């Protein structure tokens, strides 16, 4: 796990890349002018906003990250169909439930990514990060954290927990090397 980049002027490389792309996307243009501007912005904005970011683990394995992203997107698409079916189907048959997924992740950003993934994938919505403490201390794992999830149609609790942990949490831990 690494929290700082090698370059002071590039505190958040992924963010900078994202910003670079976003600028080009916004302007629908890859003209030289916009590329120059995009580069400048991609450097200036992260620097300017760096006080407003708490240190988070860097992505160590970008390739894996992209693969994971695609996987999540795929899951979103396929599983949403299922939700649509659940919604359109008879509601009486649904068996909703709350489950707690134990977390191995200890930093807020990876947890956020995991929670978002869970929320976007079918049948589950992240509800809480438990237990609640006065201040969330990044990287601290002395106390076991859980993710409280509401499931629209809960069939097998343990299976779902395993799926989440293996399918979504494990790759994240690998991406961030934590």
């Amino acid at each position, binding site marked *: 796990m690494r929290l700082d980049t090698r370059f002071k002027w590039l505190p958040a490389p992924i963010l900078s890349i994202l910003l670079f792309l976003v600028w080009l996307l916004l302007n629908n243009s890859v003209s030289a002018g916009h590329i120059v501007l995009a580069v400048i912005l991609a450097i200036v904005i992260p620097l300017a906003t760096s006080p407003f970011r708490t240190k988070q683990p860097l992505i160590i394995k970008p390739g894996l990250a992209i693969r994971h992203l695609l996987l999540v997107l795929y899951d979103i698409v396929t599983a949403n169909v299922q939700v649509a079916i659940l*919604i359109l189907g008879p*509601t009486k048959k649904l068996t909703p439930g709350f489950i707690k997924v134990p977390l191995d992740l200890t930093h807020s950003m990876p947890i956020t990514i995991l929670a978002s993934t869970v929320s976007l994938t079918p049948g589950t919505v992240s509800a809480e990060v438990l237990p609640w403490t006065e201040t969330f201390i990044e990287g601290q794992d002395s106390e076991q954290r859980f993710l409280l999830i509401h499931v629209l149609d809960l069939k097998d609790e343990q299976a779902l927990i395993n799926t989440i942990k293996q399918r979504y949490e494990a790759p994240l831990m690998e991406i961030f090397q934590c």
Partner: protein
Amino acid sequence: MTEWIISILLLVGGSFVLVGSIGLVKMPDFFMRLHGPTKATTLGMAALLTAAMIFFSTTQAGLSVKEILISLFLLLTAPISAYMMIKSAIHHKLESIERTSGKDNIEDDI
């Protein structure tokens, strides 16, 4: 051909959006209602935006991909909105339907 693709994407997107809203109306408790809008609508939007992207790329000069950005924002924010809403629902001690399992997993007073 592109017209077909656009049409299909539009219809799919529209359907998902509609399904999300149906879920909002149809589901018996707040926690179940949350699922439709959070997911189906987001996906529906993505489909619609893709349709728009193709539409503008073909009808107007040059590629138009900025619609991706809206999808990106939605993907970023929808889970957090859902999270905040479910938090406030728990705080408000909203009743979930009886057959909901694992209610004891909810911790009080957060």
